[in-house]
């Protein structure tokens, strides 16, 4: 449904997007991750036809955005960064305008506007000027606008930015409900969101794709993945450390603030062995659990925020 091939964009001396390629199929929710300024928004702007690409191609449902822009834009719902809307209009008149632009009229226009307003819970603010709405409602107006024509491809730039936890939950639920019939791309830097709703995550740094996979596969790239966290007193930790180092499959044991972290060799499941060994000796173990690796850590490692060693030496949250 979405195909991007070698997309590049340069602003003056800065290469904002550097040969980015990916595809998104129906039913997929792609989480587009990256630090601020990594090129997420620029890629989305090129995909939606707002910015022309310097190199490469992007197509929506088979329509090339550069050569068949109108056909491609018809298939596309896009919420730009910050959910811009004409602030002197009311959500009702704004959504009617969008419905007109999408070619709906009469009863169908009415029902489309009502449906989009219902999906995003805008019903009771429909007659208030958009400039008087709170940030959460403004964001929902932006979302309603993108959903109005029930597009096959949905591109949302930071859909939950600035929302409170309840609103975030609603928006995520909405995205999940729509997911089976659409190809959805969302950009975000909230990593729990990726774990919650995305079937695939793509990490971009300095304009390049540095990782592409399911959230679980990305988590596995953390140096802490597969390791075991043991919470215990410091004296117990000192006692256990040399013992655990001898367990098969253990790469290293680190003493942390609240206990121990046992690092596994790649692709080794050491949980059972470590648990048995630890229980034999120590008496005051408060908690023992296997670490899956946090997406945050992988993100920081891949985007240059921290090295693998730094992440290893951090105590588990």
């Amino acid at each position, binding site marked *: 449904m979405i195909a991007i091939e070698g997309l590049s964009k340069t602003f003056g001396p800065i290469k904002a997007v550097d040969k980015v390629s990916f595809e998104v199929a129906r039913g997929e929710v792609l989480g587009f991750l990256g630090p601020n300024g990594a090129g997420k928004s620029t890629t989305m*702007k090129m995909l*939606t*036809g*707002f*910015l022309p690409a310097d190199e490469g191609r992007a197509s929506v449902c088979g329509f090339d955005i550069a050569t068949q*822009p*109108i056909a491609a*834009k*018809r298939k*596309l719902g*896009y919420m*730009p*960064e*910050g959910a*811009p*809307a*004409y*602030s*002197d*209009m009311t959500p009702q*008149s704004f959504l009617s*305008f*969008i419905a*007109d*632009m*999408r*070619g709906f009229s009469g009863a169908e226009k009415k029902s489309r506007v009502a449906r989009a307003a219902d999906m995003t819970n805008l019903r009771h603010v429909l007659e208030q000027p958009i400039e008087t709405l709170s940030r959460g409602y403004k964001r929902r107006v932006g979302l309603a*606008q993108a959903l109005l024509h029930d597009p096959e491809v949905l591109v949302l730039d930071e859909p939950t930015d600035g929302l409170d936890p309840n609103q975030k939950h609603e928006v995520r639920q909405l995205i999940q409900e729509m997911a089976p019939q659409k190809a959805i791309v969302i950009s975000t830097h909230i990593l729990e969101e990726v774990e919650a709703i995305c079937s695939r995550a793509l990490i971009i740094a300095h304009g390049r794709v540095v990782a592409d996979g399911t959230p679980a596969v990305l988590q596995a790239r953390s140096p802490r993945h597969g390791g075991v966290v043991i919470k215990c007193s410091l004296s117990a930790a000192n006692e256990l450390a040399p013992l655990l180092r001898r367990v098969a499959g253990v790469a290293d044991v680190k003493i942390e603030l609240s206990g121990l972290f046992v690092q596994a060799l790649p692709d080794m499941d050491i949980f059972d062995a470590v648990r048995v060994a630890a229980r034999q000796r120590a008496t005051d173990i408060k908690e023992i659990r296997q670490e899956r690796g946090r997406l945050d850590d992988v993100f920081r490692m891949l985007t240059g925020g921290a090295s693998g060693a730094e992440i290893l030496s951090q105590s588990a949250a």
Partner: protein
Amino acid sequence: MNALCTVFKRELAAYFATPLAYVFIVIFLALTGALTFFLGNFFERGQADLSPFFLFHPWLYLLLVPAISMRMWSEERKSGTIELLLTLPLTPAQAVIAKFLAAWCFAGIALALTFPFWITVNYLGKPDNGVIFASYIGSFFMAGSYLAIGACFSALTKNQVIAFVLSAVVCLLFTVSGTSLVLNFFTGWASPGVVEAISSLSFTANFEAISKGVLDVVSIVFFGSVMALFLFANVLLVNLYKAR
């Protein structure tokens, strides 16, 4: 075409959604009245025509038209709605034309609301209504040309004040290019052809040509070309600057 109509309607409604339209219309009518009756000596002249009324239109437009046009694109760029507008199924050229037509239509409404002058002069005497009609058409086309210039400069910057000042200066150049102030500057060294070309760019001279009553085709074509040229530049500037 449908998309163009929709944007046109939204834009025109947007003028009336804010006090801008009402403030503009009231000031435009008050100023035309003041200029016609006091500076133009409408009554003292004792002639049944509207020439003192139309005489000041270029100068009024110079001040007021950039005030309509300044927000046209700079506001879209500042608020980010340009990204919304240009990712809807419509071409940048359609967006430029729709916005321009809405502004031109708004200027036309303001101009049409000066009809009490026409009634007054018809009540007081027997004016040549053909001349008055031609002058209205000329004034409308001149307003469109000022608007096209203003729209073009509005696409150049996110700052409405800069857009206003730039368009007012360029409009001024077109307004005064027929006067001795400008022509004397060129007569000394430029060839007569160049001087004539510059003087023929004058909005005032072309407006006067139309106001004489015979709908001067050359001048109508002149204003039409100015609009086409600046709207074409407008499309280029929108594409060039939209993302900055």
